[in-house]
């Protein structure tokens, strides 16, 4: 398992990308899977940066784990912060059928995480928000 802890600030997104991309590349993931993971990592990390410690800031830990050996292969990415309890999965999905004038700007991030990943779950445990996402690949 690989792990990184940074201050939960938007400016650190690039560092998180570098960490995740290199961990997934080392594990032999293809470009498409890496992009899908990046998409989801961005949403969750920016969510933590914006809300977890607002208006202060604090640490965010990201871990990347490959379940090699098992079939199907699985990548598991975990986000941990010590901010206010908040379940991002409780957000309502956007209405993707709405027309241009009614279409709300925003709310797409978590929706994309749900549709891109195979499993996403949240728990608040020991004073920490823990969000885990998994994606199977061949």
């Amino acid at each position, binding site marked *: 398992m690989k792990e990184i802890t940074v201050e939960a600030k*938007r400016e650190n*997104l*690039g560092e998180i*990308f570098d960490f995740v991309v290199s961990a997934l590349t080392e594990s032999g993931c293809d470009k*498409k899977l890496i*992009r899908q993971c*990046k*998409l989801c990592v*961005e*949403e969750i990390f*920016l969510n933590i940066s914006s809300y977890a410690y607002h208006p202060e800031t604090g640490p965010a830990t990201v871990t990347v784990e490959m379940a090699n050996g098992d079939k199907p292969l699985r990548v598991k990415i975990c986000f941990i912060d010590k901010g206010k309890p908040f379940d991002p999965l409780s957000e309502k999905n*956007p209405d*993707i*059928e*709405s*027309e*241009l*004038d009614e*279409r709300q*700007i*925003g709310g*797409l*991030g978590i*929706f*994309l995480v749900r*549709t891109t990943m195979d499993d996403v779950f949240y728990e608040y445990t020991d004073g920490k928000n823990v969000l885990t996402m998994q994606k199977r690949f061949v």
Partner: protein
Amino acid sequence: METRRTEDGTKIILNVTGEIDGTNVGDFESEIKRAVEDSEQLIVDLDGLEYVSSAGLRVFLMAQKQVKQNGHDMVITNVCDDVMDIFKVTGFVKLLNIE
């Protein structure tokens, strides 16, 4: 992410390549806003764009709303499969004029 802008009278072609994500979306937003303001017909050529995150989608949506308000046109061309998947799953194929 890189953008290249070509002007032909009131028509502008904005070519966007690379990846649009939370680290560079501000640059993309200012480029497309400027192109929307300066054009009557805007072609956003995504040949070479490999990835767009929700931050980028928000910018496409804002641009489309502004274009409509201005009574102008914006056409998105050369969308690769991965980006098209994102446009499809989010319902953006219905909102944007994609060729």
